[in-house]
């Protein structure tokens, strides 16, 4: 591969991994638990800003007339962890406002409006994160310490993203395939039934809202490190809709479906159209991309609302012997047999 192709392929793969982390976080909320977080991009933004503010020097260090809080100039992994933490912490107040009591589409609308408000707020506050201009000059992690060419650094960063994506996959898989995952699906399908079986509906929702927020924050931090600049135009409300389109296209509550959707929607449509010859003024194709994404959502909700890879409906109860019921054991355990739900035995 020529260096240019390598650069392109590696950057697409990096964006794929970063988006996939965010999509899993959102599907954990939307697909598995039934939380309609139409403000999801705000969590990614919180992570990105926090990572930036923890990695940058104080504003006075640069001669660029920027104003922002923080600027702690911490070494590499710490700002990323701070970004993930910021996403999780933001979920506490937003969850209190939007998720605690609101239902269904009303919740979706309230979250959408909160997202619009967050953008307007950051735009209006010049001192918080440098207002509409946003923050920039974030140094890529270890880019000065590692003896790498720019292309070599691309592959190294892809390695980092890949490792983090796999860790996130492990976490998300552990949750959705565990008994707790069943609680989440019960909360989604019938809140009343879940509560009547003694499950804490609100605790489950709050936990997943925080966890999804943390994953969004993590992906925002990785994105911040990769693109090195972040401003309010990076996180307008349509970006949340892009994540939802990914989930609807790929398959709701299906981790592989999420990956397929992430491959198809942002990479092929948004990135693929970069190769088209320029028509009209710069930015016209970007606008038309969004029109296509809207049409894609309408089309899938009409023709195939379950997505390309639908959720697997579990009809069998896995037989788990006594003493092997911890989450860790369950994951390693391959059941020798499965019992049908209808079997009326000693269970």
């Amino acid at each position, binding site marked *: 591969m020529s260096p240019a192709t390598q650069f392109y392929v590696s950057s697409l793969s990096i964006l794929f991994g970063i988006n996939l982390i965010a999509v899993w976080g959102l599907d954990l909320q939307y697909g598995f638990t039934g939380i309609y977080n139409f403000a999801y991009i705000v969590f990614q933004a919180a992570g990105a800003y926090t990572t930036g503010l923890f990695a940058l020097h104080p504003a006075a260090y640069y001669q660029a007339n920027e104003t922002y809080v923080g600027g702690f100039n911490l070494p590499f992994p710490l700002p990323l962890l701070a970004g993930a933490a910021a996403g999780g912490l933001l979920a506490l107040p937003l969850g209190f406002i939007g998720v605690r*009591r609101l239902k269904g589409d009303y919740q979706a609308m309230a979250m959408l409006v909160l997202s619009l408000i967050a953008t307007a707020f950051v735009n209006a506050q010049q001192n918080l994160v440098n207002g509409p201009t946003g923050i920039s000059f974030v140094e890529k992690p270890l880019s000065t310490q590692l003896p790498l060419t720019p292309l070599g650094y691309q592959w190294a960063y892809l390695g980092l993203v890949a490792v983090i994506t796999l860790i996130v996959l492990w976490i998300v898989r552990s949750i959705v395939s565990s008994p707790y995952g069943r609680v989440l699906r019960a909360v989604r399908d019938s809140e009343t039934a879940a509560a009547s079986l003694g499950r804490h509906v609100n605790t489950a929702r709050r936990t997943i809202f925080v966890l999804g927020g943390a994953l969004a924050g993590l992906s925002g931090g990785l994105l911040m490190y990769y693109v090195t600049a972040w401003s309010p135009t990076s996180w307008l409300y349509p970006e949340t809709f892009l994540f939802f389109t990914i989930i609807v296209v790929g398959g709701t509550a299906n981790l592989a479906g999420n990956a397929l959707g992430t491959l198809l929607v942002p990479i092929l449509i948004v990135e693929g159209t970069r190769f088209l010859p320029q028509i009209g003024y710069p930015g016209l194709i970007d606008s038309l991309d969004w029109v296509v994404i809207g*049409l894609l959502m*309408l089309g899938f909700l009409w023709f195939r609302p379950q997505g390309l890879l639908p959720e697997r409906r579990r009809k069998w109860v896995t037989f788990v012997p006594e003493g092997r019921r911890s989450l860790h054991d369950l994951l390693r355990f391959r059941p020798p047999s499965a019992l049908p739900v209808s079997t009326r035995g000693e269970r």
Partner: protein
Amino acid sequence: MSLIPGIIAFGLYSACLYAIGAVGFTLQFGVTNVLNLAYGAILTSAMYVDYAIGRGTPSIWFGILIGAVWGALVSVVFGRVIVMPYVRRGASLVAMAMVTIGVALIVQYTLEAIQGPFVYSYQVAQQSTVRIAGVTMSEEQLIIIGAAVVLMIAVHALLQYTRLGLAMRATAVHPSLARSCGVSTERVRTTAWLVSGALCGISGVLLGISTGSFDSVTGASFFITVVVAAIIGGVGKPYGAMIGALILGLVSSAAAAVISPDYKDIAAWVILIVVLVIRPQGIFAEFSSGRELIG
């Protein structure tokens, strides 16, 4: 003390602008049971159409007419061709929210593609001003207040004194019972889309004329205000939306005058958050028995 007449005058003026949009939004939700998140985009499209037809010169009466016709047309087409088929196909309420946001994006970015990297501005003509009780207001602002009051009275008359209004209220509260009493809920819903769209278009044109310039996201930011007014009053309740708009207009005008103009919007956001935390069903929710919005 001398601030008070100004606060009230500009609060009323903003409230009138908000009320037209909020009543249209909430009326349509109440009757058709679909949250129309494309409302802001339809509102923006009305600005563009008025600007294109009026060639950039604001003409308030003509604009109201164009906005009403365009908004009603788009809204009925949107409701009948897109929303109702999805509802009949059994799309969940949240899927409907996604459908309407999808349409919002399609409209918003089509407008952006047409507009390109420009901001449209109306050519501002010298306006005559009127002085009332120590407050100077432009003729345009007074016309907007007048138009809003007339529209609100018209909505009130429609809902309370006509058979159609009765049918609308019945459809909002209990659609299947209304149907079994001989109300054609399908036709009533189409009418609701029509009325809502007309109000949406009018509020879009008035917003464009009163702010002077706009682009493809103006409607999306005004949509915040519309939703805040609707939520204060309880979504689906036209009278609630009127009172919500009044509260919102007066509070944000007071915040702008007393603290600083930057706090005009922040006051609205604080009200929204307080209402969502303390009384998410809206202040006036008990006046009507729509579907449950909170758990």
